Every structure is written in structure tokens, then in C-alpha cells.
């Protein structure tokens, strides 16, 4: 029997259901909870408590991972609101957005050939960060207004930017290794 955690993730950490959360408070409560149930607390205990402790810890870890990441937190909020948010299930058919994606991809691939690739990477990163912040603002507004489909669309676009940022990190790491 899995431990009874019918409470949703926000309740688990005694946090209000909201996109804006106090990250430090979340981290602190997470650690407090986990130190109660972690398998290390049951290393000399009976087998049943040990099993339960692994399950409870896994649940708390899952809740924490979901809430601390803004994108996952956004999808989770939509899920709580009854939206179907199968990850990566939709592509935005917005032509303008598709063009922008292609343009960003080309710039990413051209980075290595720039005169000062690291500076170019920094510039691109700033753009990506600005675009992500703007999208999170839009998500907040859409979510607050109950426009859930539009909010989901914002998150789907954000997924694209997150992937771009991850790729940029990889490329930058390679460049740094070559230059340093």
C-alpha cells in the first residue's frame, strides 16, 4: 500500500496554490519533510518501515522536483485545473513562432564560426532569457484569467526555449573547452 498522499503537492509543503512560490521556503520544507521519512532514518528498522520510507521519500522528491521547476510547476497547475497536459503532445501551428524557432536554431549552429563565439553566446542567452521571462508573464496572466488553453500554449513555447537554452549550454561548454 503506497503511503496515503492524496494531498496535492502544494498542500504537502503547506504552500498556497500559485505559480509564484517562495523558493527558499519550498526548499526548506522539502528538507524538513524528507529528513522525517528518508530511508536513512529507518536503516535499522523493520522491512515494512523501510519500504514505506522509500515510497514516501520518492513521493516527496517528486513533489519537490515538480514545484521547484517553473515549467513543471506551470504544467502541474494546469493539471490541477483539469487540463490534459500530456507533455510534448502539441505543436504550435503559429507560423511566426515557427520562423523564429528556425532563425534561433540557425544562430545557434553558426555560433562556432563567430569572431567572438563566447560573446555571441552570451548575447543569445540574454535574448533567450528575455523571451522566457516574457512567456512566463503571459502564462501568469492567462492562468490568472482562467484562459487555460492559452496558458498551456505559453508553456509549450517555453519548452522550446528551455531546450534551446540547454543546447546553448552544451555548445558553450564545448567552446570553452576548446578556448581554455
Amino acid at each position, binding site marked *: *500500500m503506497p*503511503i*496515503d498522499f492524496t494531498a496535492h503537492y502544494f498542500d*504537502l*509543503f*503547506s504552500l498556497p496554490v500559485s505559480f509564484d512560490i517562495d523558493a527558499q521556503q519550498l*526548499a*526548506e*520544507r522539502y*528538507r*524538513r*519533510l*524528507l*529528513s*522525517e*521519512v*528518508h*530511508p*536513512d*532514518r529507518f*536503516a*535499522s*528498522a*523493520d*522491512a*515494512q*518501515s523501510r519500504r*514505506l*520510507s*522509500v*515510497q*514516501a*521519500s*520518492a*513521493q516527496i*522528491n*517528486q513533489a*519537490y*522536483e515538480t514545484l521547484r521547476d517553473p515549467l513543471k510547476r506551470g504544467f502541474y497547475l494546469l493539471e490541477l485545473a483539469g487540463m490534459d497536459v500530456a507533455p510534448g503532445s502539441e505543436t504550435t501551428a503559429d507560423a511566426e513562432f515557427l520562423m523564429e524557432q528556425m532563425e534561433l536554431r540557425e544562430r545557434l549552429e553558426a555560433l562556432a564560426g563567430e569572431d567572438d563565439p563566447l560573446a555571441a553566446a552570451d548575447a543569445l542567452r540574454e535574448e533567450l532569457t528575455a523571451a522566457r521571462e516574457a512567456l512566463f508573464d503571459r502564462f501568469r496572466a492567462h492562468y490568472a484569467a482562467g484562459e487555460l488553453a492559452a496558458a498551456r500554449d505559453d508553456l509549450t513555447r517555453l519548452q522550446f526555449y528551455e531546450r534551446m537554452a540547454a543546447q546553448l*549550454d552544451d555548445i558553450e*561548454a564545448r567552446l*570553452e*573547452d576548446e578556448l*581554455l
Partner: protein
Amino acid sequence: MALLQISEPGMSTAPHQRRLAAGIDLGTTNSLVATVRSGVAETLPDEQGRHLLPSVVHYAADGTVTVGFDALARATEDPLNTIASVKRLMGRSVADLKTLAGHLPYEFVPGEGGVPRIRTAAGEVTPVEVSAEILKALKARAEASLGGELSGVVITVPAYFDEAQRQATKDAATLAGLNVFRLLNEPTAAAVAYGLDQGGEGVIAVYDLGGGTFDISILRLHRGVFEVLSTGGDSALGGDDFDRAIAEWVLEQAGVEDTGDHRLMRRIMRDARAAKEALSEAERTTIAVELPDGRRWQGELDRATFEARVAPLVDSTVRACRRALRDAGVKPEEVQAVVMVGGSTRVPLVRERVGRFFGREPLVSIDPDRVVAIGAALQADVLAGNKPDDEMLLLDVIPLSLGIETMGGLVEKIIPRNTTIPVARAQEFTTFKDGQTAMAIHVVQGERELVSDCRSLARFELRGIPPMVAGAARIRVTFQVDADGLLNVSAEETTSGVQASVTVKPSYGLSDEEIERMLVASMTHAEEDKRLRSLREEQVEAERELEAIDAALAADGDELLSAEEKAEILRRRAALAAARRGDDPDAIRAAIAALEQAAEPYVARRMNRSIQQAMAGHRIEEFENE
């Protein structure tokens, strides 16, 4: 009536006895065992006062097994039967070994399930069995020194060890008759040894340069919780490379071509090592070598020349540090402590370059060869329950992503790397044929997209799926990784609630049956011993159950249980106490299961309550702070 004697509320069974526990550093080159005595963690020496146990096992034709220095002494004359560096083989497949085999003189024979076996004069052995011999030697040393049986141990593993390697390590411990409290990451253990968990906060770098491997780990410590943020390193870089750099210098100076003369090279390497060690203290040292043509060459090596030779190697470790910091999302100046591990960190240039990169003096006050074992011993002492007030909690992450094979040999990631463990993720599958009642799932670990580029961990077969039309069944497979990083899989068909049975076939680990067989084979009176062993194991588990339920009932039994529930638990508790005094392991097992079944809601209630209390305590604390 026994029931009344043992269940008086508020009474604990016995005064708390200090449990014997040990920390084990199962290293590639050397291993150590340490324990906490009178509040001090110390490594335990052998009868000759030597703390290090060379991780070397020799198998003689008459079946005699020797471990440590005695085995090491035979490495030159009997290399095929002297197994060294077995840690590199743990959890590896026959195919993996092809890349390593160049460095290893052993004869490998493919075994069941892809587990490689090494042919020795005493028969074929698996890496798990070889490691178990090392662990047995350490267990014997600890028990002789402590004068009693170990209740459990903490064994350290590299932070990057994958599931198969961790499982192999745990299997070796089982085979050696050790109860493993926890597999602990080596860098975490090193940080614990320096007491960095005591009140400290911030980012810690653990720089571990051993004889043949280099590891850098970035940990974050917050309120006694360690998180591994990233790891990096080079599995083929270590102090041996420093020795080689000196040896090459000697050959150049002496005007000798690398002749491929192994005896000469071994001698020069030995002298090079001595020179390296001397240069940790002195500014210059003399090297003398007998050359094959009868000439005798002698030269002086100063520290500057040595450093110029090894600087590229040290710099490559610093580059790895930079990468690890980047992976962790941390800047060098944010690192608040740098822990040095491994004998090669005694080289002054290493300390200087590492110190310069991180902008602070590295911690070197604990012997870098022993620091990991000492940290493991401290943690073992806590996990044995000897320090009930200790708040330390060591959190680890899964070092490599876990995924499953999908169509076309591609990997679908289920648990991404760096996820904090324990973790559980569920994935839904469906059938693709009408009436399909079984399906196979292939679990892999790694970051690459193709199954062939990842490490195959296990194949699962789900059976007992109720026959339905294709695509109608919903099979929910739950992948659970415990605090040791070990994987467990369960499956359920959700539309019917039927539990599908899971058969695990580790790709190159050992199955439970194989381990059981090895355990039996290692005993002379197999059947009788097996029964005794099983009885002993069940008795230990029964004691744990009794102790746990008594402590729980005393704490909150009346609050959380109805009178009927409590009576039922007490009835089954009495039955278990009676069974434990008997000699039938099956009866004890059944009594444990019966008690667990009755206590299950209670155990869950208690855990939920402790969670609620943790949160409640928080709110009060925050209120006070406002």
C-alpha cells in the same frame, strides 16, 4: 502470559545497546575499514599495524584464497591468478571488458547473463566474488578488533557508479555476509569526515586523485543535507601517470629507447614513484637505475622539472573541475571548501593548482588515503542508531538517466540524471496485439539516444496481462530507485487491477538465485548452513520488527490505534516473539508477514503524522521568526 509482560505501555524492550558498525572504502587499489570508538572515527589496522588492505585477491590451485599484501606479493610471479583492480570490472559486461582488457592480464570466460568470469587456478570467479573476498577480509578485521558481530556497514562507491555497479557492490556485500545500511558516495563520505555537515552551509568540491583514477564532485550542503550537484573526472588518470612521466624523463636522460622490456620498466616505475613521493617534501631527489646494457645511470630530479612534466596532467584535472562546476551551475568563488582525497593529492603542485583554481586552501588535515573510510564510519554509526539525535541526512542523486527501449532501438528517458533519490516514476504501456498477455521491457542507463550506446541494465518480462484487444490494456510500470541507487520495478494492469508479475533478468548483474547459489557453494555443509543462515537472518529481522513495533506502540499506540487494532497487533506480536524463539525460519517469516499486515495502516499513519508534525513545527518556527 507473555503478552502482558512485553506490552506494558511506555516500556521499551531493553536498554539501548550500542550496535557495532563500520565504514568500508572498497577502493580500486586499496581498501580500508573504519569505525567509531569513543566518539572518534578511526581506520582499523591489521595485526601488523597496516591500515591499507591492497584490493588484490590471489587464487591458488588448491583453492586457497589470499587477500591483501600476501596476494599482492604474488602478482609478479602468478599474474593470471592474482586479481587486482577488480572494482573496474564491477557491474561490467563481457563486451565492456574488451575496452579494458588491454590493461588486464586475466583470462575471461563469458558467464551466464553476460557476467564475465575470470579463469583462475581455483576455478572461475566473478568480479562480485572477488570483491566479496576483500570485504570478508575487512569484516574479519573489524569483528576481531571490535570483538563482536557487525550490525551493518556503510560501503562507499564512486558518485558516478551506475545501477549495475552499485548492485554488484551490494551483491558482493551480501556474499560476504554483511548487512549494508547504505551505499554512500565517496565524495559525500569525504565531506562528512571533515565534519562539513556540522552546521556548515554551501558548496563543497571533492577532488579525488588516486593511483589510477581521478574524480571531481561538486556537493551542496544545506542544513545537514548533502546533494551531489555534479561529478566528473577521468577513469584513466592518476598517480601512476605521474610515475610514468618521471620514468619517461629517466629514459630520455639515460638515452634509452623504450625497449618494451617490462622488467626494466617496472623497476624504473618503482623508482619513479619513490622519487615522486620524495619530491612532496624535498626540493630535489636522486634516481639511480641499472640499465639493460649493464650501465648504471644516476641523475638528479628537481621539483621544477617534475612539475613541468606533470603540469599538463594536473591542468587536465583542473579543466575537469571547471566542467563539473559548470554542470553544477556554480562559480569557483562560490565553493566554500575543497576536500582532498587520494594519495596523489600529496603532490604540492596538485594542491597549489587546485587551490589557485578554487581560490582557497584545500583541506588536507585528514590522511587523504583514509578520509573516505572515516566518513563512511561516521555515517554507519548514525545509521546503526547510535546517535539518535543526529540530524544528518545525506541525499544523493541518480548519476545517469534511466530509460527504456522504444521502437527502433531508441531510448525514452524515465528518470533523468541528477534526480534526487529515492525516486519513483510510473510509465504506461499498452499491448499491440489482440489477446497479448505478456510484454518485454528493456531498461537502460545512460545519456545517449540509442539503446546500443547506453548501458543495458535489465530486461523485464510482464506476464499475466488479461487478454484484451490491442491497445486496450493499460499497463502501469513503476520504476523505483532507492537511496542506494538500486532499481526496483513493479507493474499493474490498471483497467483490471491485475498485478503483472515482473521477472528481472539483470543484463550482467547476478540474479538472486545465482547469489543464493554462491552463498551455498561457499559453505561446506551447504544444506544445513543454508538453513542456519536463513534462520539467523529471519531472527535478526524478527528482532528488528519487535523492537520497532514496541517503540512505536510505546510512543503513540494508544493515540493512533483503536483498541481492537492494538489488541490484534499485540496478538501477532506475541506470536512473532514465540516464533523467534523457535528454530523454524519459515514460521518466523510467516509471523513477520502476519504482524506487518496488521501493522501496515499503523506504520503508514505514523509516517504521515511525522510529516504533518514536521510541517506544523515549521509553521510555529516561522511564526516565531516574524
